[in-house]
């Protein structure tokens, strides 16, 4: 198994605090929800180590990164150590002044702002009163200063029928080049009210149909690494491959959905190094205490997660006799963990057979 000498990028939760409490927040009430934030001085020391290891890019997330008043000082440390960065944000705290600061660094790849509706009623119902207007203002502040904005739409039970209008609003009114989608997953706060937020099978089918049509209407401008658009894209390929009976690729038929541990790591707000922000219960070490490069190359938990891709789906009773088994990669290990208590199991939410058995259907594909 080949491994780079250091990860190319890192996800860094620079704060566990946030000004909002979005109903499906992946952070709060998860293992990444820690009480203390690392002080800026510790982040700056850690960035020096990353610079020496030739790490190239950081994604700053939280909590809400802009909630930290010392964010500019932290970003200056990133710049000083020859890294580029992007930020995941709810957008509501991005002022004209902060947007100008980000542009001035010349190192900001993008800022991702969450916008879940085309109008306040939809967006605010999950994210809080007045947040739509403030998020849109944040996007416009970034656009005025030439900072690339990549909006993320979290698809949930409240916004399925608004998706065509959200798309029009983002791509036409706000003139974004593209945006991405995911869905409210069984992680963090969403777990406590999954029945109100997560899509039912029929809503999931409907959302896939809508996103499939929108993706064809706006080719290349809507992307997804999770959620209904991702599902329809992946499941369509799986269903077609199964019908045609072609040979699976080398990773298919195994728990190979997540390649993250081959190229990146994450750090919690308290400085604990973890494989991924969504796998924050697996504590690998601590910044400025443990040798980051050595940990990346040798930590047994990382080796275990890297070898996950060698586990065949045929080992699981859940997958037994599944006609799609040879073309499946098992889904996100973090959702597997929250659903089953183990990372090394297939994620039931990503199972095409289960979806179809429960009455779901794929658009434009006979299976």
């Amino acid at each position: 198994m080949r491994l780079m000498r250091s990860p190319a990028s890192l996800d860094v939760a620079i704060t566990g605090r946030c000004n909002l409490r979005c109903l499906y927040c992946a952070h709060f009430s998860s293992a990444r929800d820690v009480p203390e934030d690392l002080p800026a001085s510790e982040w700056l020391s850690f960035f020096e180590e990353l610079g020496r290891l030739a790490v190239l890019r950081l994604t700053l997330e939280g909590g809400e990164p802009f909630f930290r008043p010392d964010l500019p000082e932290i970003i200056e440390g990133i710049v000083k150590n020859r890294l580029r960065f992007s930020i995941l944000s709810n957008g509501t705290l991005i002022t004209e002044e902060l947007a100008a600061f980000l542009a001035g660094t010349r190192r900001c790849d993008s800022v991702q702002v969450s916008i879940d509706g085309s109008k306040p009623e939809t967006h605010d119902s999950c994210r809080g009163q007045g947040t739509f207007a403030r998020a849109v203002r944040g996007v416009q502040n970034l656009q005025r200063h030439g900072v690339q904005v990549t909006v993320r739409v979290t698809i949930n039970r409240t916004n399925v029928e608004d998706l065509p209008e959200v798309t029009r609003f983002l791509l036409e009114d706000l003139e974004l080049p593209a945006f991405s989608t995911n869905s409210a997953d069984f992680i963090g706060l969403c777990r406590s009210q999954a029945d109100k937020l997560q899509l039912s099978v029929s809503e999931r089918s409907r959302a896939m149909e809508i996103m499939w049509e929108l993706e064809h209407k706006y080719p290349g401008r809507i992307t997804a690494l999770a959620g209904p658009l991702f599902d329809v894209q992946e499941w369509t390929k799986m269903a077609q491959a199964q019908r045609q009976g072609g040979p699976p690729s080398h990773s298919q038929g195994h728990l190979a959905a997540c390649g993250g541990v081959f190229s990146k790591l994450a750090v919690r707000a308290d400085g604990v190094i973890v494989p991924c922000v969504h796998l924050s219960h697996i504590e690998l070490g601590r910044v400025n205490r443990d040798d980051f490069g050595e940990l990346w190359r040798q930590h047994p938990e990382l080796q275990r997660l890297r070898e996950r891709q060698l586990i065949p789906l045929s080992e699981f009773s859940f997958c037994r006799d599944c006609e799609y088994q040879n073309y499946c990669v098992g889904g996100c290990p973090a959702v597997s963990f929250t659903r089953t208590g183990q990372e090394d199991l297939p994620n039931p939410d990503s199972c095409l057979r289960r979806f179809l058995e429960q009455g779901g259907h794929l658009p434009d594909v006979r299976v």
Partner: protein
Amino acid sequence: MTADRPLANPLVVLREEFDDWAILFDPDTGHAFGLNPVGVFVWQRLDGRHSIDDILTELQDSCQEVPGEAGDHVRAFIDHLLKNGLAGYEYQI
């Protein structure tokens, strides 16, 4: 000014990857350039002390069967780095 002793741009990151290949990453632009092992060898000697002839001599001493056109290739590579701002010449103030 050290006229024939090029210097790697200190802002540019050399990230070594598999099999002695590497990526040159310019954090100001986000552009990345792939380097083969000979490119890495040359880059690591762009320290303002080695002339291009010095680098060529070291390359010939370190490798077997260096082809005759290697000198032209190394000069072209360094020219490319200079044109793209990835290397320059140091000025003595």
